[in-house]
């Protein structure tokens, strides 16, 4: 503790700096107006800075500015505004007394974009030494989205967004740059307006109904939503993605999976703008898997006399149960409104939204209410404050899907329902299912699986400009906030259900409540110093405080009194509680040097101590360093300038960590009672007293180029991550009294390339076409394993699982098949790898006249999926291709019979290629010309746009399940891509009208 405090004190002293006196000189005033090139409209809020100094101002509501200069000779104005190319204007004496006009051109290739590089600093993209991705609201929301994470899919190289289930409310994995862990956390750190947003996936307890796993199991299968879904995507101004350790090092011990920085909208100068947006649309099933068509013969063979009898009773009709179960056209509607305005001192953004979306299964759906107020106020030139508050209430009805040991989930039950057998209710009576322990139609119509979240996120930032001269400044930035939510999961499985009637205690009611509070506070000092010859130094240092506190309580009631759902209206009650407390303290120091906008150097170090580590007071250090050079700024580049007007080489190195799972460090005792007395025995897992974070060391390098007079841009990045101290579960000799322990005992290497090509193939007044093509590929290999090779992530070896073995990719799929190597050793045969060979995306925007057409394709090539859904339908005898023939060893067999006959010795029939092409987003927008509505609304309307579009409209894949985007076990590192018939994916169509007042 002592060392930690001492360090804090040292940092507190940082900031005693050179205070130079300001030079006095004759001053003149320059006046000007900034307008946009395409419309000629004034641009309020544009920044004007005198090159090489910190002297500057911003344009007012009318786009006008006034700047007092001490010396007009040799002064250059740098005019910048987000989304526009930065202009440099050489000041000459003739300008004095005139109003100069500065025309800003749109920055399609985003070279001038400002990118956040630290906790209190930023740099223009043209200097950036890392491959950091950013997206603005219009690009983010090309197509309507239920939750935010979905909208990130396909937008960036190295960012792979994949859903676990199609159930309303989500359950989505965001993977940045491949596999980095085996047992540790997998999801990026989300930071919204400086507040670390909790993205936990809390279990609903539905496992207790499906019996997929017991409560408190280390591998729950409730396919929970993740809480980042609560954000209102319309509130987002921009998102910045720090993909790897070299960019995210400043976030230290939690940043191995990257960091996603979300900035919400702010108020603006001038007249208050009101945006109203209304959407309506519907969801429908994306893909069917089909069902077997029976004959009397096959029905008899499959189900015996009962099959024959029921087949004849129904006349052998074919009931398409996918239509019955998944055939709903779920209506979606979204209403959102926002107000943006303010004056020089106070600005505000206020928004509200309501979204309601029905699922493709009856009685499922998602709705969300969100309200936000963002305020900023300038007390004086020295002090300004921003305060944001967001309240969200979301509710999702998720049905009962996925893995199951009780045959109650929709997918399992339909897998055991022959198409000739009618389980639909007659006169309100649900027939008993004769081939399955439950009637899924009945289950669908009465079972409740609801998740309700109330959440408040509040963020504050105080900028205090402590000191400022013409060439240096010192700022104190306080940034922090609270994320609080209460989640209530209610599952009611009524006693009248067929599956419950036969239980010892019919009827179950589960109530899980999760109360989560996390807060963080960042204190930063930022010093900027600029020399006369345009070399700038930014020194920042700060400390962080973070606490996470979660309390999860699940109450299970069995033997429900008929018609009752409260947990006390039952015969027995069981309770499970899980608390999560984590406290972290960190500091950082960072130095950035910009040499005449040609060379950019940054280096820094972060130190973190966390209660999750074996030694909670030990500070783990995470250094970083990066450099970029803009070759195109040098004379020698002139010969290439016709090809490339901007060329930058960059290299970056950084380290990050992944915190130990919380209970790894504790040797705990578990209740073992005897003779009515409470007794305790040590748990089977020994506490790892010296457990420390996993460490990722990443080196990335690449180049960014603008080509053909900025008609194209090309960005190339290669990265290599060496991950050490991997968390592994090591067996202990039982004579120690324990069975296992978490150790830091392995190494992994993950490499990848990311290529992003931006094109403007057409750029005429009537038609422009912008296109962005992303390509990325990652591969990982276990380079050292301090424990014996082991299987992880599946259900059992013969059902397909993943093999962790030295020299192998950690996502290697194996099964029952063994092979003998030339040297005689036996090993598991590799059946595939869940990591895709590569992923590409194609994003295109066409603007013609008043129309915009946007579409985004994503192509995932390779990546194995363990399709146990097919095994389920095989076991139920209902797989669509069951009766197709296959020739095995010269013998003709039915495919279904063959697959089952080799079950236990061959897993390969259930391991499939998960390649796909998806039309992720499509929209066609019509910007109604002003003259068409001016007669109706006069000047009241500032714009009116109509659009139609959709999400996940098309899927091309050879995969035979619902969707190769699937994960029964949720957001685990190893064990994704196991399909046990989740909620099927849907496509959504919508119509949108938006207007501005």
């Amino acid at each position, binding site marked *: 503790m002592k060392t930690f405090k001492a360090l804090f004190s040292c940092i507190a002293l940082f*900031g005693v700096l050179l205070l130079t006196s300001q030079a006095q000189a004759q001053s003149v005033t320059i006046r000007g107006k900034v307008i946009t090139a395409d419309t000629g409209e004034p641009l309020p809020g544009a920044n004007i800075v005198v090159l090489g100094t910190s002297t500057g101002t911003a344009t007012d509501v009318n786009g006008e500015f006034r700047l007092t200069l001490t010396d007009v000779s040799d002064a250059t104005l740098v005019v910048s505004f987000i989304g526009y190319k930065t202009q440099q204007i050489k000041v000459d004496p003739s300008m004095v007394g005139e109003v100069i006009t500065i025309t800003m051109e749109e920055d399609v290739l985003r070279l001038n974009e400002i990118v956040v590089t630290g906790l209190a600093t930023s740099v223009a993209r043209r200097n950036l030494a890392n491959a950091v991705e950013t997206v603005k609201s219009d690009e983010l929301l090309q197509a309507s989205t239920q939750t935010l994470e979905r909208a990130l899919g396909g937008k960036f190289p190295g960012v792979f967004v994949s859903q676990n289930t199609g159930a309303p409310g989500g359950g989505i994995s965001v993977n940045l740059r491949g596999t980095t862990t085996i047992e540790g956390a997998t999801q990026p750190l989300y930071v919204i307006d400086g507040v670390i947003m909790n993205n936990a996936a809390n279990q609903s307890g539905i496992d207790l109904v499906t019996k997929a796993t017991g409560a408190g199991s280390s591998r729950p299968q409730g396919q929970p939503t993740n809480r980042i879904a609560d954000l209102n995507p319309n509130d987002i101004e921009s998102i910045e993605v720090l993909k790897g350790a070299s960019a995210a090092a400043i976030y230290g011990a939690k940043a191995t999976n990257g960091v996603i920085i979300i900035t919400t909208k702010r108020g603006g100068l001038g007249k208050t703008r009101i945006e109203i947006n209304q959407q309506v649309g519907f969801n429908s099933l994306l893909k069917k898997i089909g069902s077997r068509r029976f004959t009397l013969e096959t029905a008899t063979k499959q189900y015996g006399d009962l099959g024959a009898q029921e087949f004849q009773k129904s006349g052998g009709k074919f009931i398409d149960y996918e239509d019955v179960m998944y055939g709903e056209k779920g209506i979606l509607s979204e209403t959102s409104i926002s107000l943006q305005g303010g004056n020089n001192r106070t600005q505000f953004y206020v928004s509200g939204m309501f979204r309601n979306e029905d699922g493709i299964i009856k009685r499922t759906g998602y709705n969300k209410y969100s309200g936000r107020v963002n305020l900023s106020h300038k007390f004086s030139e020295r002090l300004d404050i921003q305060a944001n508050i967001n309240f969200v209430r979301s509710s999702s009805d998720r049905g009962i899907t996925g893995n199951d040991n009780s045959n109650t989930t929709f997918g399992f039950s339909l897998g055991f329902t022959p198409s000739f057998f009618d389980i639909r209710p007659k006169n309100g009576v649900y027939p008993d299912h004769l081939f399955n322990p439950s009637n899924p139609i009945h289950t669908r119509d009465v079972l409740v699986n609801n998740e309700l979240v109330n959440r408040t996120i509040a963020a504050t930032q105080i900028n205090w400009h402590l000191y400022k001269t013409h060439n240096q400044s010192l700022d104190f930035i306080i940034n922090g906030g609270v994320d609080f939510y209460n989640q209530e999961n209610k599952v009611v499985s009524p006693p009248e259900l067929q599956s419950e009637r036969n239980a010892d205690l019919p009827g179950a009611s589960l109530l899980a409540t999760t109360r989560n509070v996390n807060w963080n506070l960042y204190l930063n000092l930022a010093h900027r110093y600029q020399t006369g010859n345009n070399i700038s130094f930014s020194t920042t240092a700060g400390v962080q405080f973070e606490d996470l506190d979660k309390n999860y309580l699940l109450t299970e009631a069995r033997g429900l009194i008929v018609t009752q759902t409260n947990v006390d209206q039952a015969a027995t009650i069981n309770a499970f509680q899980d608390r*999560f407390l984590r406290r972290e303290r960190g500091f950082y120091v960072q130095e950035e040097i910009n040499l005449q906008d040609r060379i950019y150097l940054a280096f820094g170090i972060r130190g973190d101590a966390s209660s999750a580590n074996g030694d*909670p007071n030990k500070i783990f250090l995470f250094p970083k360093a990066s450099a970029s050079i803009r070759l195109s700024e040098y004379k020698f580049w002139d010969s290439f300038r016709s090809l490339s007007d901007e060329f930058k080489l960059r290299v970056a190195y950084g380290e990050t960590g992944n915190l130990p799972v919380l209970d790894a460090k504790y040797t*705990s005792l578990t209740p*073992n*009672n005897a003779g009515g007395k409470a007794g305790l025995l040590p748990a089977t897992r020994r506490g790892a007293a010296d457990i420390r974070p996993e460490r990722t060391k990443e080196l990335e390098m690449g180049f960014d180029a603008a080509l053909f007079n900025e008609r194209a841009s090309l960005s190339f990045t290669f990265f290599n991550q060496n991950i050490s101290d991997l968390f592994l579960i090591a067996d202990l*000799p039982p004579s120690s*009294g324990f069975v296992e322990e978490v150790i830091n005992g392995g190494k992994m290497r993950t490499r990848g390339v990311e290529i992003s090509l931006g094109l403007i193939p057409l750029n005429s007044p009537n038609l422009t076409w912008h296109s962005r093509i992303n390509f990325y590929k990652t591969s990982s290999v276990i380079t050292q394993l301090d424990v014996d090779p082991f299987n992880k992530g599946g259900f059992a070896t013969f059902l397909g699982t993943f093999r962790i073995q030295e020299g192998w990719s950690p996502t290697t799929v194996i099964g029952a098949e063994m092979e003998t190597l030339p040297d005689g050793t036996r090993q598991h045969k590799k059946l595939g790898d869940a990591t895709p060979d590569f992923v590409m995306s194609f994003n295109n925007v066409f603007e013609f006249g008043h129309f915009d057409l946007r579409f985004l394709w994503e192509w995932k090539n390779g990546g194995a999926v363990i399709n146990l859904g097919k095994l389920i339908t095989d076991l139920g005898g209902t797989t669509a291709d069951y009766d197709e023939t296959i020739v095995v060893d010269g013998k003709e067999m039915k495919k279904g019979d063959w697959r089952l006959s080799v079950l236990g010795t061959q897993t390969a029939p259930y391991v499939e290629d998960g390649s796909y092409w998806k039309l992720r987003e499509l929209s066609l927008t019509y910007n109604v010309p002003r003259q068409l509505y001016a007669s109706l609304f006069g000047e009241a309307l500032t714009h009116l746009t109509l659009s139609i579009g959709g999400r996940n409209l098309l899927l091309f894949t050879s995969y035979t399940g619902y969707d190769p985007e699937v994960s029964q076990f949720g957001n685990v590192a190893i064990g994704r891509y196991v399909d046990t018939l989740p909620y099927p994916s849907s496509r959504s169509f919508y119509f949108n009208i938006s207007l501005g007042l």
Partner: protein
Amino acid sequence: MMKMNRLPKCLHCPLFGLLLFGGLLFSMGCETLDIPNPNAPTVEQVTVQSLVTGVEAGMRLEIGIYLRVVGILGREVYYFEPADPRYTGELLFGTVDPGGFLLNRPWSARYRTIATCNFILDKANDLEPQAAAGARGFAKTIMAYQLLLNLNYLDENGIRLNFDGDLSKPFASKQEAFARIESLLDEGLADLNNAGADFAFTLTEGFSKWNLHTPAGFAKFNRAIRARVAVYQGKYNEALQALNASFLDRNGPMEMGAYYVFGTGLGDQPNPIFENPDAPFVKLMAHPTFETDAEAGDQRFATKVKKRPEPTTFDNLTSQLGVTISKSSTDPFPIIRNEELILLAAEANIGLGNLAEAQNDINLVRAAAGLSPVTLTADNAVTQLLHEKRYSLFGEGHRWIDMRRYGRLDELPVDRATDKVIDRLPIPETERSEGK
């Protein structure tokens, strides 16, 4: 025109900002990062009482598997488990899987109880001298007993006497193991003698029913185990000495002794040996020779098994005898009891050539079973003793070990052509140092 707010002058002074920065740092930096486990207690937080009860609970862990395994190896019982072929497979013809649960689960449970005893020893350092001595006496006695059970399993293969998980340390031989068990028991006795009139903790009915729950009473239990250990090594004088200090009582009831207790409450364990004797299928069944070798009128036979209406055949093994040594799922199960002590006395006396004393004790036990007296001779004494032990202590985990001690495993019946009697279990895979 709105006027600019007038701010306190201090807000314009950089030094004030730096002071505020430092102050915030100081106040936030003081909070401890050392957070105890919010979900479960750690050893530091709990009382000796809860660890003692934990030890009593831990002694029973996997005891059902242990009793079945040694019962099957000693051809006392079969265990017809449709879900697991190993009870009627490898235990009857080998080779026992060194990674299998039949070996590993009881083995691990014994060491888990030992680990808990070690926590008690650590805790004892903070107690008053008498309370500390009581806690140490309890812990050492139980540790010795747990080691003995694992030694019964592995016998000549030895056991682990280092509890730190260090596999580079050598596996202890049988002799070393006995030496440690003896010294733990003797140290435990010395502690118990210094522990005053009462323990600082309470024991369950498993010890209190027959007054073994005080330091003096527990010392008698300690000596009873010590006597068994001495007899196992043929140290018959030591055995008689220990028996004198034990709860042996020739006038007392045969069932007097120390027991595992069972319950069906939260966190408790039911008796693993009990099965409803009238169920259509029971798993634990006596070997048919238990009936064919029984003397007519032996009440021990009549009470310990129940002849079922139909024989059960499983895996080519047949029995008609359900085991009824436990009467309910909450019935206690003996750790060591008076009947064994009387027979241990008889065995020691046979070993020392005092056949008259041995004959008295054996006939005492026979009389309690409703049988007429026998006459011991140098030739029949051991055979008679083993017969009485077989019927008196049926199902309690002794037959295989007793027969092994006398080199008589080849006298045990084998049922199927490929069956053979295994003399010891292998060293568990997880305890081997090779390849680590």
